[in-house]
């Protein structure tokens, strides 16, 4: 009996230690990725990276200024398209909708959220590239914006619903109309949560590559306006990483570091400072 109990205790301790090892290994991956990128990217980053256009194929040097601007433009346009739909749709779900319509909209959003990014790319290609017969910044932004809708919608709804009903009743009792209550009491009470979710959605689509491959395509030069193909950081990382040139690999690391750095900074800020005391939804 004593031996059996000792064995059971040994098994217990051993297995529990193993679960700890699993947790450490999983978290260690993050730090491994970070140090590796810092080490490889840090040595490749220089001023040219931010200010120069890519050098002609075969020449070393040059930078990714056009990709940085391209990514910024894509994210800006994607936000202008995706956030209003998600935000206002979310208000409708939380404040106006009956249960039947709400569950239909929610179901659509969840479905859209689960669609693989490459399929989003195909969809954006068929409605925003094919009819116009050319790749463009707007088509890429359309694809990215689509991916922002579900997260924005669901979190807007969730955070609005979480506002205590006392606030609602208080505003109504003061004679405010429903819209007045929503716009000046409920949304302000929930805005930190909603903003956090939107920032996280933005950080997520900032790294998306697959939906841009055949919408925004890529460009080795500046892309004026919104109707032409544009370079973007994720796509450039992909193209450079699979290229045979040493100097392009170096620049891919640099771009990877910049991209991941931005994404992680936004994530950390949004999750710690902005959302202090709120449960942040997982994407």
């Amino acid at each position: 009996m004593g031996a059996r109990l000792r064995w059971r205790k040994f098994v217990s301790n051993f297995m529990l230690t193993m679960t700890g090892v699993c947790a450490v290994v999983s978290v260690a991956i993050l730090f491994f990725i970070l140090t590796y990128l810092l080490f490889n990217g840090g040595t490749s980053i220089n001023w040219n990276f931010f200010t120069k256009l890519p050098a002609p194929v075969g020449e070393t040097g040059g930078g990714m200024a056009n990709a940085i601007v391209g990514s910024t433009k894509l994210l800006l346009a994607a936000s202008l398209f995706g956030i209003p739909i998600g935000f206002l749709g979310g208000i409708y779900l939380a404040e106006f909708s009956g249960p039947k319509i709400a569950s239909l909209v929610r179901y659509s959003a969840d479905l859209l959220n689960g669609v693989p990014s490459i399929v989003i790319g195909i969809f954006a290609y068929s409605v925003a590239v094919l009819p116009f017969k050319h790749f463009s910044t707007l088509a890429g932004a359309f694809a990215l914006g689509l991916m922002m809708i579900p997260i924005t919608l669901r979190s807007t709804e969730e955070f609005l619903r979480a506002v205590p009903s006392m606030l609602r009743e208080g505003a109504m009792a003061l004679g405010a109309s429903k819209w007045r209550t929503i716009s000046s009491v409920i949304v302000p009470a929930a805005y930190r949560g909603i903003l956090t979710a939107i920032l996280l959605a933005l950080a997520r689509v900032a790294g998306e590559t697959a939906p841009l491959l055949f919408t925004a395509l890529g460009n080795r030069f500046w892309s004026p306006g919104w109707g032409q193909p544009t370079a973007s950081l994720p796509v450039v990382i992909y193209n450079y990483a699979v290229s045979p040139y040493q100097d392009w690999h170096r620049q891919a690391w640099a771009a990877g570091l910049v991209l991941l750095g931005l994404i992680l900074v936004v994530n950390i800020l949004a999750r710690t400072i902005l959302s202090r005391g709120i449960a942040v939804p997982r994407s």
Partner: protein
Amino acid sequence: MQSAGPVVGSRSFLSKLKDGDEIARVVTFIFAALVVLITVLLVYELWVNSALARHKFGLEFFVTRVWDPVTDEYGALPFIYGTVITSTVALLIAVPLGIGASIFLAELAPPRMSDTLQFFIDLLAAVPSVIYGLLGIFIVVPMMRSVIYPALNKPFGFLPVFKGPSYGVGFFTAGIVLAIMVIPYIISVSREVLMSVPRDQREAALALGSTRWESTWKVVVPFAKTGIMGSIFLAMARALGETMAVTMVIGNTPTISASLFSPGDSIASVIANQFTEATGDLYLQSLIALGLVLFLLTFVLNGLARLLIIVTTQKGSKVST
């Protein structure tokens, strides 16, 4: 009296309009409806734009091994095979690791520590797939050639799975990279599901004299089983649809080979690689048909996952109240 009714009604409608209530309702409704519309349009576009391929190949699309733009013949089998194999490898690695870690986070770690580790796991989930691909190309591929391949091929080379040469890129490499990418999803969801298991379940098991591990493994985990399955389905859906990281390390050759070291191709990677060069209509539509297949696969898996997770967390809250 009788004429007063409509007047009052229209007045209240007018006052509603003035306060903006009706306008707000209509405007926000339009945006909510837009979400449904977009989703329907997505399915419609995939369906219509793959019509040529669907009519020409029918169900044989799924069993044809040839993918040849020159003879205009397209079959999905090599890509379905690649997607299934890489996802299976990924889950074989990620499931034990992820569940182990989630048990540690939910059962053992003190709340502060659990939250901190979960924070890092969330950050890991935020790393874009192209970064995983970058690290895959320059770390996992060389490691596969110089460390993993020799270690597995020498002792186990007689098994068909570990036979043949390795070029670094291939099913196994893609599986490893995918595993790393889906671990955060398994951990996050499983942890939440495990934490929703009522406390008295654990206490009852401990009171009956079981060790800590026995109470965890024989009581808590079975209680949360369906939810954990949900997290695995969720991870599987992610793995199936993952594009960039796989494209960068799988080798991009449509082969069906029992060897895990063989280069291959997956549904998502072939779309990413060939979409812009697809010249003929049938070629393009075959790629879109592949996209449709991928969509349907993830649709089913995601639906199942959501159902399982909801069932488990509700079970937890029902028992505890």
